[in-house]
Each structure stands twice: as C-alpha cells, then as structure tokens.
C-alpha cells in the first residue's frame, strides 16, 4: 500500500522531449490510468516510475521516499509488460516464484504463495508448463501473478491487454479491475485505448506530447474535457467539434461556422466574447437531437451514413462543410434514410467551448439543468 507522486518530472532524450514537467499524485489504493496516443510519453512515464528510465529533471516519490536514484529492484514495484516478458526457460511455477527466490524466501512459504496466486488466477493446473505451452490469456495471467505475488507497493501495467483478442480483452479488463479492488494495491496502468481507460480507471490522466492534459474521474473527463484534444480523444465516436464564431446580429445569439448556425446558450455568451472570435464548439453524439422538422434549436443537414450497431445507432449528418455524428436508439434510427434531409439540434446546456488556438476549454456558468458531476460515477460509454 502506498502513494506515489511525480513532481515536475521531465524526460529528455537527445533531440527529443519525451515527458515535459508532469505532476501527478497517485492516491493509496487508486487505479490511475495514463492514456494517450502512441508516443505521448505515457510508457516513458511508467518506466520512470519503475526505474527503467532515468528521470532528467524532477522527482518521483513512492510513499515518502524519493526514488529517483533507487534501482528498480529496490523500489518495491511490480510491473506487467505488454508482451508479458515471461522467462521462457522457466515454467509457470518458477516464473511466479522468481522474485521470491531472489529474496531468499523460505521454500515452504514460496510454495504456499505460488499456490495461492495460482488459485486466484486459475493457473493451478499449469504450474509445470513453460510459457510457450500457454495461450495468450494464460501468459497474461502468469504475468499478472508474477506481479501480485510480491505484494508490491505499486503495481505498474504497460498496455497489458493489447496482445489479447477483443473478447478476451474485455473479460480480462474486468478481472484486472476486480483483482486490483480486492488487493487494494495502488496501480498505474498505461493504455492507448480510451475505452479501456474509461472502464478501468478510478482516475484517468490524459497525456499528449509529453504533457498531462487532464486528470479526472472518467465521467468528468467525458462530460467536461479540459481541452479539445481530450474531447476528441475520449469517447467513441469522439465529441463533435466545429470552428465557429459568435454572431450577435440577430434577435438570438448564434454560433456560425462552416455553413451551420447553432443557437448559443445565453450563459456562455459573456465568456465567449472574452475569448474573442476564434473558438470551437463541441457536443457529444448522444446529446444531438434529430427530428423530422426544424424545431428552431438547430439546423438542417443531410444524412450521410446510418450505422446500426444493435444497441445503438450512429447517424452521420453533413451540414455545410461539417459532419456530425449523432447517437440514437436503434428504433429511432430505423426511420432515418440515407440522403434524407433532417433537422439536427443540440441541447444548449450540453454544448462545450474550446479556445480556437490553444484548445483549452472555455469555462462558463452551467445551467442548473445540467446534472452535477459525480466522482466515481459510472461511465456513459
């Protein structure tokens, strides 16, 4: 059990800044997910916590010990690698017990621990097998077992699910989360898959270009992205974004851009005027309202595609020179035909605004109709 803290941590390779002054505080027992596109510095960050990479600047603390210059083996962390890194010439028993044997744990104790872990992870019949004789999922469980057997202060996982097929990935996702809750070990989990991040993390740190863009609980991240990158990165399909300007010439304040006009929520007008003319408006696909007639709350568009996924339908609408995606119940989508002209609107309170250049979210007083953001809420995906 431990906390971990990163203070202005920077990693610089010759001619390349991989991690740029990040600050991160990981609470005891927390499941923190580092998520971002490839090359964003998330794995480097994890490897610095593990001690596999040197920190160029800044400090890393595990518990109340500064570990910058502590070797990996003395940090009391365990790591699960993307390709599992099982010792190929050792059988499952030897793989699981390797760290214990190095620490000269008595033989009986090793056997007890290995049997416990093997029972937990359903590996008991496989203890004599070599890694080549195991399936992908089994190898993955051995890698997990090797990490948990040590009861480390910190669990580090580097994309542990990306080598599994889709079905097994979803299943293992649940298993890892359940295991982590049960053991209560502070965990840092790296993934490029935002849906993995949203389903597993108790908190998520979104990274891009070596920086942390936002740290939040999944629901907050989804509802109130701190900038346009997070808005587009989190959620499938991503948040609809459109470059607009504020048009106050008519009787109603409108957002216009790309041949589209959207009514602007009154509470946002002041904040938007302060930003200036260039900003982007965004809304989640499920916040789009599609109706046969123009209700005045939106604009007309042409249906470009209807994708029925069974539990939901995604309707792509082209308006002006922009495209939006709406998420609808399948029953509603049934009546919508390809090429049809439909009215497309968004509930004003669900609109989000981002600075056109920096991408930072524009804060404005939310309407009371907006539901309050709850911590540890369920993920809307």
């Amino acid at each position, binding site marked *: 059990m431990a906390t971990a803290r990163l203070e202005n941590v920077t990693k610089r390779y010759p001619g390349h800044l991989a991690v740029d002054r990040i600050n991160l505080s990981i609470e005891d027992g927390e499941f923190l997910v580092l998520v971002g596109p490839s090359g964003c510095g998330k794995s480097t960050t994890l490897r610095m916590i*593990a*001690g*596999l990479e040197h920190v160029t600047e800044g400090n890393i603390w595990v518990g109340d010990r500064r570990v910058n210059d502590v*070797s*990996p*083996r003395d*940090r009391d*962390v*365990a*790591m699960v*690698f993307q*390709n599992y*890194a099982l*010792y*190929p*010439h050792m059988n499952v028993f030897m793989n699981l017990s*390797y*760290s214990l044997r*190095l*620490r000269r744990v008595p033989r009986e104790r090793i056997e007890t621990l290995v049997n416990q872990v093997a029972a937990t992870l359903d590996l008991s019949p496989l203890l004599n097998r070599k890694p080549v004789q195991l399936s992908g999922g089994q190898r993955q469980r051995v890698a997990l077992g*090797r990490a948990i057997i*040590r009861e480390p202060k910190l669990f580090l996982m580097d994309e542990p699910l990306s080598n599994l097929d889709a079905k097994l990935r979803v299943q293992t996702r649940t298993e890892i989360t359940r295991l982590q809750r049960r053991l209560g070990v502070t965990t840092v989990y790296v993934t490029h898959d935002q849906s993995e991040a949203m389903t597993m993390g108790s908190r998520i740190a979104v990274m891009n270009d070596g920086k942390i863009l936002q740290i939040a609980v999944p629901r907050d991240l989804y509802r109130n992205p701190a900038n346009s990158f997070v808005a587009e990165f989190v959620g499938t399909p991503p948040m609809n974004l459109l470059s607009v300007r504020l048009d106050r010439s008519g009787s109603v304040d409108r957002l216009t851009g790309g041949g589209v006009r959207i009514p602007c929520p009154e509470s946002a007008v002041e904040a938007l005027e302060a930003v200036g003319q260039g900003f982007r408006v965004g809304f989640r696909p499920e916040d789009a309202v599609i109706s046969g007639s123009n209700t005045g709350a939106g604009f007309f568009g042409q249906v470009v595609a209807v994708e029925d996924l069974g539990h939901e339908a995604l309707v792509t609408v082209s308006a002006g020179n922009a495209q939006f995606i709406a998420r609808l119940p399948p029953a509603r989508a049934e009546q919508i035909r390809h090429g049809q002209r439909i009215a497309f609107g968004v509930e004003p309170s669900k609109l989000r605004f981002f600075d056109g250049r920096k991408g930072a979210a524009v804060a404005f007083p939310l309407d009371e109709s907006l539901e309050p953001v709850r911590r540890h809420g369920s993920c809307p995906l």
Partner: protein
Amino acid sequence: MLGPVLVCIFVLVIAPLLWGLRISLTDSRMIGLGYRKGFTLENFQTILSDPDTWNAVWVTIVFSGGTVIGSVLLGIAAALVLDRDFPGRGIVRVLVILPWAVPHVVAALVWQWMYNPDFGILNYGLLLLPWVSATPKWLSDPQFALLAIIIVNVWKTYPFAALLLLAGIQTISDDLYEASAIDGAGPARRFLDITLPGLKRVLAIVVLLLLIWSFGNFVFIFLMTQGGPAGATNALVVHIYFETFRFFRAGSAFAMGALLLAMSIVLTSIYIIMLRGQDND
C-alpha cells in the same frame, strides 16, 4: 532435385569415407596402393596398442577442449561488450572479428614470431612484470607447446563464437532484463537467469562446431611445431598425416582416421542427446 544432391553426397562424402575405411583394413603403404593383405585387422591392433596413438588422442582432446572453453569464454565476454552501446563500437567490432579474417599461415607466422623466446614480444612483456624472472620457451618446451598452440587457436576461433553469441544476445528481449531487474535480479543474476538460458541454443551450435573444427585442425600444429616437441602437440590429424606421408603407413593411418571419426561421432551424439534432454525438462 533430391537425386543430384544425393549423388553429390555419395560421390563426395560417403564413397571416400567407405574407401578410407576399406584402406584401413589393408596393409597398404601408399593410399590404397601396394598392399599384400586385402583384409586385415592388424592396423587396428597396432594402433590401439601403440602409446603414440593414445598420446595423440589425449593431445586432441586437450587441444579441442581448451579451444572450445577458451573460445566460448572469450566469445561471451566479447559479445557482452559489443552488445553495449559505446563510442567507437564499430571499430571495436572490426578489431574483434579481425583474427578470424587473418589467414592461418599469416597468423602462425606472426604468433611464431611473438612466441620467439629471445626476441618475441610475449616474453619481452612477461619480463617487464616484476615477479617474472624466467620465461618459457613457448614452442620448444613440451610443457608449454600445447598451451601455446591452444592460445593461437582460441585467438583465431573466438571471433566466430563472439559473432554468433552476439547475434544470440541480441535476440533476447530487453523486456526480460527489465522484468528481472524489477523482480530483484542484479547484473550477475540477470546474466545467469536471462542471458545464458537465452543463449543455450546458439551456445550449443558454437560448442559443437568448434569441437568438430578443432578435432580436425591441422594447420597451426603443422606450421608451428610439427607435432613436437616430443609429441607434445602431436594431435591425431597431425599424427595421421605423418603416418601417411612421412612413414608411408597408409593402412594404420586410415585406421587412426576411423578412430578420429568414431570419437567425433560419439562426442557429437552425447552432446546432442544432452541438449535434447534439457529441452524436454
């Protein structure tokens, strides 16, 4: 395609081998010529009761064993160094591999010169050491001659071992080293638990090839000591050569050839069986 290959193998390998065995069963003096007895086991009786033969067998074993051990140890060390990233690695790689590219004759001449007891650089260097007062007469002292030849052979063959082992080391995933580092292994344990097991197959091939090659190595001994002094470096191949071409006893020479072949086959088989056993653990 199989036909021509089989014909080639038969003509180039199997037929000469059988012919050689046939000669070993005659009292031929020139190779395959001038024999009176068409079939006799006398050659085998003679060579097996001749202490010179057993000396040659012993020299062969020491020479081969020394070469393999020396080359593999030096090869692993060189491979570990070359695997690291350091400035000038390209040049060092070339230098390490260089002995392999030097022709045997040139190598023999250079080493002979270095071993020269009076003006060789080796003894000159040894005398610079404060505790050394007498230097060996490398190639003319029966105590040192075999060691001297082994050193030359190790020098010539270790680049091969280094090259193959380096390739082997580079196939070992970095993740394994990292995982074991996190699990608590220091550099020595990582070498024993990750590097060595990862090199097992390559190592097997290296040991086998070096063993076979040094069993048949003739050049250095012939060029530097001619089997002497007092038979100290008289390995089987050299012994066979002298039997055939100096003493014109082709029959018994070929019998020794058969003995050498049998030794090679036995050693190789033992080795392969050992490896199979390890794999099935």
